[in-house]
């Protein structure tokens, strides 16, 4: 167990580090200069040189990168070139938008998908099963940005129930805060709900056809006990795996959704950082995403051992 965890830890760190190198080289490869973008057209050459020095862009790429890595190891991710503020503060500030958005979407997706998937599996052979299957096919096929616009049209433009976009912090107005997150959460969750429903249904069907289920039924257990303890418990490994993948998808999907709903989250910050070649910010963001994804998959792997005693880590 210990060797497994330490091995996972080492590969995680390498993965995250490789992600940072990749972003840094990509930013070097594409044309564009942060100082030029900040000063805009009509910048005078002297100001450009001065800003270059100020931003540390006059340092050669390799030392620039190693300096940044040395700082990052100590928790100092440098200063954003566009915002001229510490990157760490910017990211933690935007997390208050992106975290509730991601967790809200996953929670909503689970609340709908798990019961629906189980229900469809149990009701196989009735009219309910194909209905759920059709729903999940359509839901998975609808792109989230399109769904977002449809939600805005219905809830904001037509009925004025919810804001079309924008964000109000919790401390300023809790109800406005919640209202500003409802539509983005819906838009992000629906696609994942569909996928999770389908996977849950498939996982449950597979388990329900197993011999031990038949045995459990044969020895006279009630169908409720068979379903909730025998079947669901065994399907959980697959369901947790899907959950991990869904969270990753939601993190990535939020980049588009934040743009559509004008939410100042991590995703939009990443887009801005990309557009302005703000490499300290973008590197830190990519490292954050990479860490989150690596950590999630680690959690998922660890959970297998608890869910299924047959799984052992070596």
């Amino acid at each position, binding site marked *: 167990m210990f060797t497994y965890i330490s091995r996972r830890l080492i590969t995680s760190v390498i993965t995250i580090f490789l992600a940072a190198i990749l972003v840094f080289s990509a930013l070097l490869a594409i044309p564009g200069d942060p100082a030029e973008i900040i000063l805009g057209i009509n910048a005078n050459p002297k*100001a450009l040189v001065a800003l270059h020095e100020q931003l540390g862009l006059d340092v050669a790429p390799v030392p620039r990168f190693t300096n940044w890595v040395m700082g990052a190891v100590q928790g100092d991710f440098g200063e954003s070139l566009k915002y001229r503020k510490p990157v760490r503060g910017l990211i933690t500030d935007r997390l208050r938008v992106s975290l509730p958005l991601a967790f809200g979407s996953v929670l909503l997706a689970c609340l709908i998908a798990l019961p629906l998937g189980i229900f469809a599996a149990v009701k196989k052979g009735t009219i309910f099963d194909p209905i759920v299957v059709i729903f999940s096919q359509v839901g998975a096929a609808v792109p989230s940005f399109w769904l977002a616009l449809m939600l805005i049209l219905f809830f904001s433009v037509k009925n004025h129930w919810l804001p079309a976009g*924008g964000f109000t912090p919790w401390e300023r107005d809790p109800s406005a805060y919640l209202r500003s997150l409802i539509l983005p959460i819906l838009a992000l969750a629906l696609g994942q709900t569909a996928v999770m429903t389908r996977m849950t249904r498939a996982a449950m069907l597979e388990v329900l056809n197993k011999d031990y289920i038949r045995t459990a039924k044969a020895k006279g257990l009630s169908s409720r006990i068979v379903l909730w303890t025998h079947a669901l418990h065994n399907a959980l490994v697959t369901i947790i795996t899907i959950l991990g993948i869904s969270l990753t998808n939601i993190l990535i999907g939020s980049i588009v959704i934040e743009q559509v709903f004008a939410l100042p989250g991590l995703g939009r910050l990443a887009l801005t950082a990309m557009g302005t070649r703000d490499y300290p910010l973008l590197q830190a963001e990519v490292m954050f995403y990479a860490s989150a994804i690596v950590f999630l998959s680690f959690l998922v792997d660890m959970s297998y051992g608890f869910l299924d005693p047959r799984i052992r880590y070596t």
Partner: protein
Amino acid sequence: MKTFLKVLVGLLIFGLSISVAQTPEPVYGGSVNIAITAEPPGWDPTVSTSQEIARVMYHNVYEGLVRFKENGEIVPALAESWEVSDDALSWTFKIREGIKFHDGSDLTLEDIVAKFNRAKDPDSGHVHTKYFTAIETIEAGEGNTVTFTLNKPSSSLLFNLARPDSIIYPAALQESQASTPIGTGPFMFDEYIEGSEVRLIKNPDYYMAGVPYLDAVNFKIMPDPDTRFAALQSGDINLIGTSLPPEQFLQLDSLAGLKGTSGSATTEITVGMNESRAPFNNKLVRQAITYAIDKEAIVNGAMFGLGTVIGSHMSPSEPYYIDLSQQYSYNPEKARELLAEAGYPDGFTIKFELPEPYNIERRSGQVVAQQLAEVGITVDLSVVDWGTWINRIYLGHDYDMTIIGHSEPKDIGVYGNPDYYFQYNNPAVTALLDAVELELVPENQTAIYQAVAKILANDAVNVWLFSPPYLVAVSDNLYGFWQNQPTPSIDATEIYQVQ
């Protein structure tokens, strides 16, 4: 179709003029939400040329000695009057008495002197120092005056002093302006919710009597045009005064509770050609390209008829405008002849790169590419992101052809810079542009500017397609907003909302 569009636009303008005629009396109080499109990199217009800064801050929070009015006229702001010496080398501005900054401190002459010393110093990090090169010294004088002594007469001085970068703030607080702006304007900077909105509140001590009307203005950052328009329809936003697509503007008439205005702007949508490389170094080719492009069709097709076809680097809103749109007007036959004469009877292949952030440019560019194909020019069309555009095309001059809206007012002077991205070098133009700086009689200035415009048109330096109008979409109970855009600004001083 063309006639239909003209009738439609005509009806719209007619409808608008009726609504303008019934302007109600101003009302005090309330707050409005205004959409902007991007997060500005700080709030100090003297360290960044981001137009979003000017849109929010110009004459709302920050003011200069003089300012633009909505119609482009330059009127007193912090200076109540000014005098010019006979040799035009000495400009004395009388500063209003008793003006306070938003932090309660007094506006001093030292603040003004320090500002322009910084503005003219190329090492100071101030943007656009070239606007201030004519200033030799600036000194505080008797009777609350400041005097600019120039090293040569400058007909653009007053204009440059009205620009968004000529604003005054407390000299000692320069460093903190990017995060906490302190100005003298009708609104005070209240709060910035990072990435989401900036809130300005009424300055109760504003020196102009009676304004502003509103208690607060919130500028909300909304990058997506569809979301902005939806937010306007749902009432979350009261005004969109930037980057309104023409098709959204045309919908306004049929939407309850909303109205639109179409005014003048100083933008020229320009197909820029790289004169430092073949085939664009051949005037015949440039003329052929100009003949090949049906500007009218672009305005109708890409802009739904909203836009004025132009023929040189001037928008109709500029005081010295001359209509040259008929020079080399659409004639594909003539274009083919000229191409053959230039030695390209079978055409050639060029790369045409469109800037990603600009929708109007992108859609116009697509039509241009199609029209060029019809005269035998093969166009390899691609879209480039903004960082690449600035770096490789604008500063690196590594491109064939591109398209961009030149939105700065009075920017025909760029043709005097041979190192500008289209690499046009004509000593006659440079000489005229130098001469106009020294010319103080407005009529003579107009004559020189028009002469420059004619040379540019004749040389077919670029293809100036059209000047798009300044489009605004607002709640129909909102009045007093700028309907023209002499400089990028959403001036809220006189905005009011009736219930």
